[in-house]
């Protein structure tokens, strides 16, 4: 490998780590920081905002659909397996 790409990769490594660790305030590129603070997440913690509220009813409805539809997976609900088709 020629010295140029090697130096480029090394520079990128240093720049990436510096930006992400937020250690250099003189760089004009803004650092990405968590923009929703823990004290701003009260609404998100309410049951109304959860992707999953109760395990059993979700498992039941998932099972009803799994044995009648061709699609399955990626719902985050664990199926149990059966010979119900």
């Amino acid at each position, binding site marked *: *490998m020629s010295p140029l*790409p*090697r130096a480029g*990769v090394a520079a*990128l*490594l240093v720049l*990436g*780590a510096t*930006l*992400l*660790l*937020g250690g250099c305030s003189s760089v004009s590129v803004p650092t*990405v*920081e*968590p*923009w*929703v*603070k*823990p004290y*701003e*997440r009260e*609404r*998100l913690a*309410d*049951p*109304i*905002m*959860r*992707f999953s509220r*109760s*395990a*059993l*009813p979700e*498992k*039941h*409805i998932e*099972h*009803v*659909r799994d*044995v*009648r*539809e*061709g*699609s*399955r*997976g*990626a*719902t*985050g609900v*664990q*199926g*149990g*397996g*059966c*010979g*119900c*088709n």
Partner: protein
Amino acid sequence: MAATRAALSLWRRLAALLGSLLGGLLAIGGVRAADLPEDTGEGLLHVYKGGGVTAAGPAFLVRKSVADRFSLTGSYYLDAVSNASIDVVTTASKYKETRHEFALSGDYVYRDSQITLGGSTSHEPDYTANRFSLDISQEVFGGMTTVALGFTRGDDKVGKKDSPEFSDTARHWQYRVGISQILSPRWIMSLNAEALSDDGYLGSPYRAAQVFGAAVPERNPRTRSARALMLRVNGDLGSRDAMHASYRYYTDTWEIKGHTLELGYSRYFQETWLADAYLRYYTQDKASFYSDNAQSETLYVSRNRQLSTFDNAAIGAKVSWLWRKEPGKYEVKFNGAYEFVHFKFKDFTDLRSGDKYAYSASILQLYVTGTF
């Protein structure tokens, strides 16, 4: 040769760069502590009725922490099925059977990670299914992002009632990855992807296919590989109400392509009532070897309507009533859910009438949930 070495070296450097970026991302999050799932008890009575099938039964679940970082979950699920579906009434006779499922899992929390190890076993007179799963989730980016990885392995034993000479097996693998992301103080989204692989006997020994108008046993491929991708968004609307939207795309090597769309709305009434309403639409293309009445002899043939071209539309509602609450101690809720769904098949004929088959079903759930 030199070019290969240079390429390898570049890949190593790119991997190191990605590693450093990921390391930096994790470092931003700092050290947080993920919470163990709450101690919970659930009792459910479920009923499905439609298309000549009634499936009903109770289910129970208990989750209890046994140390600061460890909790155990045990559940039992019963399905008592009375089947007089169109398959059964046109090619066999009505039957009743019961399925029992037991599941046990453990959650372990360490700093901002959660590890869940689980197993389940399901028994029917002619089918046994065992599952083992491992899931790991990690909070990063100051708790705004949760990354999850998971794996499930399944082993099934397939039998046929009154035919002791029939015995087969099926094996299943599922690999999943997901990310949930807080977008703002009011919006959250998640993206989940799953790869599924099946190997073995993937049909039903009771079901018949039709070739030149004659009933023959169905012949399915012994492997199936699928991909599913699901996007979900939840938004707080500001008046103690919220909206939910999700879309799932599914595709597999049997050439089934499925789309699922769901839209929902939730709202609190007074302090103790929470109501949800949703609409769901599902549509799919048929498997390559599906045929209502095959007009040529092929290696594989099936008339399983689950593999046909069809769509369904559902409307559902849930109500939850908070009965007792002692902040920091316990909470008990009574819940009810109802869904009405209509299935419409495009290439599955009702052999009794000659029309395209369609049916409606009702799904009812009554359940109690408690956290303590």
